[in-house]
């Protein structure tokens, strides 16, 4: 049993190989290394910390079951991110089927119960900080309110900085679809924001 710090010089690929041959310690180190980014993505996708923790935990368990299929041709983080995004997407699909039976408005309300989004305070001008904080908080909430398929594409592009082809690959859709969904997401966000913030900021 090695402590976390002893793995510092071991690459993700070697850790994954260790995990594939049964080392739970090696796998735990991978969990330690990559969970923060995965949690941030899951939190942006779901809008809830609790849902994000559950989704990332499930993703890590799926990763353990499939670790032998990780061949190292992609980065380990990308490999895990794909598992996470697919897992959350499946939840979205289940939820939208349920929502179709119940009521869309109610399901949206229950999803919004998360903690208020916070914004990093950088920059000198207090007026500017307040302005940016408001915009970012409103954006965060507007993103959570986007229909699932637009939100996922928007986040993979704008916060994960993935290329259109990577997004298409992960989601199993055409690049043209990525392009049009992204465009739709941006248009909806602009409209939401110009209503809430006032047209001046995005004119």
């Amino acid at each position, binding site marked *: 049993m090695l402590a976390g710090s002893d793995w510092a010089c071991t690459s993700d690929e070697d850790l994954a190989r260790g995990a594939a041959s049964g080392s739970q310690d090696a796998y735990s180190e991978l969990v330690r290394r990559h969970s923060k980014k995965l949690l941030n993505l899951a939190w942006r996708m779901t809008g809830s910390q609790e849902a994000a923790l559950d989704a990332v935990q499930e993703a890590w*368990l799926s990763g353990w079951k499939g670790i032998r299929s990780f061949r190292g041709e992609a980065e380990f983080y990308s490999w895990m991110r794909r598992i996470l995004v697919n897992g959350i997407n499946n939840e979205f699909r289940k939820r939208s089927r349920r929502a179709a039976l119940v009521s869309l408005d109610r399901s949206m309300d229950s999803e919004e119960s998360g903690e208020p989004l916070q*914004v990093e305070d950088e920059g000198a001008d207090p007026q500017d900080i307040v302005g940016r904080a408001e915009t970012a*908080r409103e954006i965060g909430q507007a*993103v959570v309110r986007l229909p699932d398929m637009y939100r996922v594409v928007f986040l993979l592009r704008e916060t994960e900085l993935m*290329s*259109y082809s990577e997004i298409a690959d992960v989601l199993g859709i055409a690049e043209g679809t990525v*392009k049009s969904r992204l465009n739709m*997401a*941006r248009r909806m966000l602009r409209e939401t924001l110009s209503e809430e913030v006032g047209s001046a*900021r995005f004119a």
Partner: protein
Amino acid sequence: MKRESGHLDAETLGAYIDGELHGPARQAAADHLRVCSVCRETASALGAPGSAARQVQAPEWNVEALVARVEAGISALEAEGEAVNDAVAAGRRRTVERAGVARWTGSAGREGSAGREGLAGREGSAGLGDLAGRAARWVKSRRRSALGFAAAAVILLVSLVGAAGYVYRREMIAQDRVLVDSHYIIRSGNAGALLVSYPGR
């Protein structure tokens, strides 16, 4: 690519700011943006939601609590795997199905007990390991009790058959006696003895 107005459409502008336009298309867009302030405005408006989204500060995560949850989950998976392997080795399909049930109950327990506590930063792993062990033991104990049940059923069946046979034989013997006795009584001409000897019949 260009709208009737002569400006670039939003999808093209979006692809441009995403670095997804290549070759002549990229050149044409760049040339137009250089001379058109309307499209420059639109492009920066298209990029604004994304840069605002990147500024939203993520929560502080308790990664160690998550590591503990994942480790406990993996232990439970491994325990399950062993239970299933045991069952397969023994060639008992029904036990495999039971292990499936244990897996389901195990994961339900995981959500319930460790889920929320793990989030609060408490150590949930001991309880989870325990749960995994309990699930495995449950499978084994169910297998034992199934064997016990089968044995008891066989014993019960055998004794029932035995008892039934015994009762039947007694009945036959009694009937034989009645026949023999009545035959004797009738032959001996003492019909009254028939009623005296078998008052209940």
